[in-house]
């Protein structure tokens, strides 16, 4: 283990030196090759100055550009391409992977009928034949993702706002905020262990060591295998992300609340508004923009949620989500075509937020 620590330190030193050498060296070469001195003509000096300042930004940008291109831009197009290819990425299969996932939209609301409109009976089972309406697990995952997208951002934002408001009214508010904020630092996997322990189940009759079951039993209920109950188990997984993200919402909203001019609140109070009217009438409208930012940020995190499901249930008992399904198809089943198609679905879900962000950034830059 000591070897490895030394190795790591050495590699860090080499990597840092390499980058420093690049930045410093490239700048040095630029200054040298386009050096100016008093003996040169005015024209030459101007030309060289201009050329230097034209080249230098690219020296600064080059490593970042290469990283961004190789690790983010190229993969978007490559994933799009792979989603149109078969499992090994060798043969073009058109939209087959998407058809596997979604089925044919024309068939979603139809049943199998023959030319006369009578249902076709499957000779093997004797039951009416059903049309392929897409992969059930995919649909289940997509549906779960929609539930995550509705529940997690709204609960996190709501809790964050409530805590931000409450904490500003008590003397120990900063301590409270720190404690609520703390889960932000914990990994999703660490959080998964923490909450698996909360949801832990022991047979009825024996003492419960999981907090949730202990509370249920204390109130005279039966202990439950929480993570085995469909729908409820998904919600219990969402609670973990809410637990983590509430601190984020709270910090951002707390800063926004402090930014509200006190005069507007005082004026409302003098006019006889009560606390609730002040909150919903004065404060909430003024922080609406920030709420939206918090909401979208958490939405993006939710769309990418993988670790929690992977560590808690691995998608068993109907808890599957798209990010985990994508991992399964790609790395467990070895089908990069289906995996890529699922990744593209996630990307498309993110797209509206990306466009909204770009529009805001363009407005902020005042150009393009």
């Amino acid at each position: 283990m000591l070897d490895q620590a030394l190795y790591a330190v050495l590699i860090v030193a080499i990597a840092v030196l390499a980058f420093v050498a690049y930045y410093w060296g490239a700048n040095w070469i630029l200054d040298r090759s386009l050096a100016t001195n008093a003996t040169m003509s005015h024209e030459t000096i101007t030309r060289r100055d201009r050329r230097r300042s034209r080249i230098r930004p690219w020296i600064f940008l080059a490593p970042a550009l290469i990283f961004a291109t190789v690790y983010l831009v190229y993969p978007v197009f490559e994933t799009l391409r792979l989603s149109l290819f078969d499992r090994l990425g060798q043969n073009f299969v058109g939209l087959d992977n998407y058809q596997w996932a979604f089925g044919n939209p024309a068939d979603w609301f139809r049943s199998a009928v023959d030319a006369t409109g009578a249902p076709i009976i499957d000779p093997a089972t004797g039951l009416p034949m059903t049309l392929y309406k897409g992969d059930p697990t995919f649909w289940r995952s997509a549906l779960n993702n929609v539930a995550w997208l509705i529940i997690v951002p709204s609960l996190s934002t709501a809790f964050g706002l409530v805590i931000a408001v409450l904490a500003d009214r008590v003397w120990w508010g900063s301590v409270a905020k720190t404690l609520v904020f703390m889960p932000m630092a914990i990994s999703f996997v660490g959080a998964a262990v923490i909450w698996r322990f909360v949801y832990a189940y022991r047979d009825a009759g024996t003492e419960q060591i999981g907090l949730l079951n202990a509370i249920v039993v204390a109130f005279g209920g039966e202990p439950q295998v929480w993570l085995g109950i469909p729908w409820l188990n998904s919600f219990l997984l969402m609670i973990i992300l809410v637990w983590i993200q509430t601190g984020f919402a709270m910090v951002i909203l707390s800063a926004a609340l402090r930014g509200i001019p006190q005069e507007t609140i005082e004026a409302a109070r003098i006019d006889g508004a009560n606390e609730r009217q002040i909150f919903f009438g004065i404060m909430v409208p003024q922080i609406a923009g920030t709420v939206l930012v918090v909401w979208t940020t958490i939405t993006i995190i939710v769309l990418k949620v993988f670790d929690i499901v992977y560590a808690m249930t691995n998608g068993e008992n109907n808890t599957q989500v798209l990010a985990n399904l994508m991992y399964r198809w790609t790395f467990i089943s070895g089908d990069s075509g289906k995996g890529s198609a699922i990744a593209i679905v996630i990307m498309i879900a993110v797209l509206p937020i990306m466009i909204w962000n770009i529009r805001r950034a363009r407005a902020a830059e005042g150009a393009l």
Partner: protein
Amino acid sequence: MSTTTTLAPNADIAVPKAADVPEPSRRVRRFKVGRLVTHIALLLIVAIWTLPTFGLLISSVRDPDQLALSGWWTALSTSTISAQSERLPAAGTAVVEDGLYTIRGNLLGADDNRTIRTFGGTATTAGANPVGATIELRAGGTITVEENGDYVWTSPTPFEYTTAPRISYVASMAPRFTLENYSTVLNANGIGRSFINSATVAIPATIISVMVAAFAAYALAWMKFPGRTFFVIAVVALLVVPLQMALVPVLRLHVQIAGMFGIDGKGYFAVWLAHTGFGLPLAVYLLRNYMVGLPREIMESARMDGASHFQTFTTMVLPLSVPALASIAIFQFLWIWNDLLVALVFLGSQDEYVVLTGKLVDLLGTMGSEWHILTAGAFISILVPLIVFFSLQRYFVRGLLAGSVK
């Protein structure tokens, strides 16, 4: 450090709130009741948010047996263990004491922290007799059991039995706290190794990405070149590209390129590069936002003095950006340390590579009910983030605010 305020003036989580607006006196009473409700509500919320982590911490230092038997909230009380039994020794071990055939011994092993509460001659009578009582055994004679497990079994006639009888007892265990769980997971379960692996992944990746981002951020903030606005917008667009998009293409690329040199496409080098690439947009975005806010006069006076952009950047902008750099570094570090997916895909799963999060997922699978292993392992994995968080919270909060409120 006076420039720290440019990032986010209200960022500090510990800043006391703006002065309360004085309440009209006729509302004082209602106001106080309201205050009480506020206190209680907040206390309840804070309790819900802290108890799960607190329970993990408590459990990780409990005796493994006690942890399996009772909830962590009972950690301070004595726990009762359901009936157990111990076989008495063979008849031949009896000695004669004071004219009585006597067998002495102890029901509990050495170094046992259990205390016997009740005992009996059969499994069903384990709770029947308090310690110190004397009972008759079917095998003959009478036996007395003490709290510490010592027993004396005597008989006026020689013991004659082929199968030794069993004594059943109910014991209790005093609360015991120990660091054994930690030494177990650190050594036997390989968490120690994973800890080093996590550091090996996180520290270089953090340094490289912050350095690359700082240069790019300066160029996007203060240098003039065609397409600058386009690149700024592109950074914003790349912020939300899901990691899932990058996994397959980048892994293939890594394997192909490494294959040309005849080496493995997975490993530390691959994961450093991947983390640097994936973390870059956020780092560039935050740093650029900060650097744009630096006073223009500083840049202009440096240019007047004939300093090149490189000199301006290294001697003026970098030192002034320390608060922002710290925020980014903390973000990157926490994100990399806590990451599971990138490590799973780009690092490989051999012992020499597996990071803390990956190890923990393994343990969840293989030791799903060994809570003394899981709780101690989880706490080790969240220890570094918690230390970073509590010691550098100011910077962490500033970074968050700079990244979102803009």
